[in-house]
């Protein structure tokens, strides 16, 4: 499987080289994706950002991308290729590209790198991420109101802080309207396997959940919800077309404003290494229209979004009670970002063990 992916990436690389013969006075902005741009999820949304950059700057910018790049040594080769090809700013969009990005950045001090969702920076390496947990909190509130069984099924990929943060935020949101809310968690060990995601959704519905939440990338779980007359939330992209009667809202990634601002900085010669973690306020996390909900739930959700934007509401406001009963955070204050980024515990009320 691994070999095959490498070969695919090599193929993608070969294609990339073919397209790399344009005017030299244009700024070359490049992207590296871990998935196919046709995933209608995570990589798709990043590519929408790339297209937005093309549209915004027109002739001034030339963009390029490599898709399906495997995390690991292959990524290093892919990123280096782009740097050699004359890319001036390179966005590496997956957590697993972190070390490769840092390594290549050392070899090309004049090229600017931007790594998504990581924490290692350098003079020419900036990092950026989105506060997806903000959207998940509001989803939790909606689920707390909408679920008849008081149980949501939650399909997840890998136990990394990003994902755990999402589960906790969802649960805190749900508990804020229904203190006895329950979630059932299934790890499918993949970001992207529609079949498995659909299977997990079917099993969870069979076990009494009536709302499905996912931290995996395909539209399959929502389709199952639609099929069985249950409810669910979209992930990364607005998936309403796949589940017009089931989607309550979707937690969408919007990288467009960030990419435009960073490419603009590069064009103006004022690019600096930075760490950006934007949420609803910055427009990086956007909840798609609230559908299939009664007016009062819609109003509640809209109010919460407004409060999160204004800073009045922070999903992780202390004290937060962990599963074992201990608490973190000061009363009335939000947890500091470093603590969120290293989150390795479930909050109280989640009736499951966190995989190590």
């Amino acid at each position, binding site marked *: 499987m691994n070999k095959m992916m490498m070969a695919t990436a090599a193929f993608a690389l070969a294609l990339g080289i073919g397209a790399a013969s344009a005017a030299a006075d244009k700024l070359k902005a490049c992207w590296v994706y871990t998935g196919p741009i046709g995933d209608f999820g995570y990589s798709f949304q990043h590519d929408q950002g790339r297209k937005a950059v093309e549209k915004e700057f027109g002739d001034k910018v030339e963009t390029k991308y490599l898709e399906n790049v495997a995390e690991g040594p292959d990524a290093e080769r892919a990123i280096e290729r782009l740097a050699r090809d004359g890319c001036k700013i390179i966005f590496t969009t997956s957590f697993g590209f972190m070390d490769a990005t840092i390594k290549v950045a050392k070899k090309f001090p004049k090229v600017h790198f931007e790594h998504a969702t990581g924490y290692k920076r350098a003079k020419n390496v900036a990092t950026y991420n989105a506060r997806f947990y903000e959207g998940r909190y509001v989803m939790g509130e909606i689920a707390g109101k909408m679920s008849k069984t008081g149980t949501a099924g939650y399909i997840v990929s890998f136990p990394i802080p990003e994902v755990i943060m999402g589960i906790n935020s969802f649960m805190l949101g749900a508990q804020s309207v229904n203190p006895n809310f329950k979630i059932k968690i299934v790890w499918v060990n993949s970001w992207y396997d529609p079949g498995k995601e659909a299977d997990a959704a*079917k099993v969870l519905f069979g076990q009494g959940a009536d709302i499905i939440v996912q931290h995996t990338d395909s539209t399959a779980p929502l389709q199952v919800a639609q099929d069985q007359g249950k409810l669910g939330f979209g992930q990364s992209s607005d998936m309403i077309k796949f589940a017009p009667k089931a989607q309550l809202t979707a937690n969408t990634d919007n990288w467009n404003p960030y990419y435009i601002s960073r490419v603009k900085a590069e064009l103006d010669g004022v690019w600096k290494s930075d760490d950006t973690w934007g949420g609803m306020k910055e427009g990086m996390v956007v909840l798609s229209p609230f559908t299939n909900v009664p007016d009062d739930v819609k109003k509640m959700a809209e109010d919460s979004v407004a409060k999160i934007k204004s800073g009045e509401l922070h999903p992780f406001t202390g004290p937060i009670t962990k599963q074992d009963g201990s608490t973190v955070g000061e009363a009335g204050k939000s947890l500091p970002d470093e603590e969120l980024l290293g989150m390795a515990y479930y909050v109280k009320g989640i009736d499951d063990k966190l995989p190590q």
Partner: protein
Amino acid sequence: MSELLAIVLTIITASTPLLLAAIGELVVERSGVLNLGVEGMMAIGAVCGFGAALASGSPYLGILAAMAAGAALSLLFAFLTVTLVSNQVATGLALTLLGLGLSGLIGESFVGQPGVKLERLHIPGLSDIPYLGPILFGQDLLVYAALAITAAVAYLLFRSKLGLVIRAVGDSHQSAHALGYGVIPVRYACVVFGGTCAGLAGGYLSLAYTPQWIENMTAGRGWIALALVVFGSWLPWRVALGAYLFGTVMILGFAVQTKGLGIPPQFLSSLPYLVTIIALVVISGNRALTRANTPACLGQPFVPDR
């Protein structure tokens, strides 16, 4: 719907594409050809099936298109490996890459479009019997087709003259050739049959399992099918057992996770592979029988002497 019923129904849909792809590959390998391109043919089947169903509105036309697409790609493989006698392993891997890449290209405009779903059958009366009804009489057509194909392959391979010829070609192509059987036409037919089944398996993914198209949606199922053929020692019903066992353990793994037992999910994810391999190896304990069932000419090139 009760929990158990949901689990059983999910197991059936999860196992069917594996069985469809594996039973086709079994016939290919019985004729002495190793086609590692199952994953690529599945992907092409999935995208073409999806596209045809979307354009025509009929999932059944989608199924036909999926089969035709898998067959077309396998015909290319047959031409390269059987006629031009290229290396089967390398050509098979290339076929996988080609299939995955080409399917992404064809499917670019299908991304983000809901597909046409192949509905489950509903036989009034029978499908409404509690529990047994939905399981036995309420599946989609391809679930029954997969089992019917398995039965047909089991019968034809071991109870008919045609099967005897196929196995002869796979076990000793020189002897079969000397006896006057057309090794090349037999292999062509078997490879195309395998491609048709792989295409059908892909179509099952994009029409019945998860009615949508996204790149790489086969997610390695072609490779699992290939492994099932070997571990099922090239016997149709064993391969079917392996496919269903794999699906069962995978789905049970999901069901167990929510019970809060603290079993690491990484372990549960690897369990289907472990259990299926161990079970099939144990069943195949009789070494002489296993050796007898292994096509002796598997992967070997055949050039007729002149």
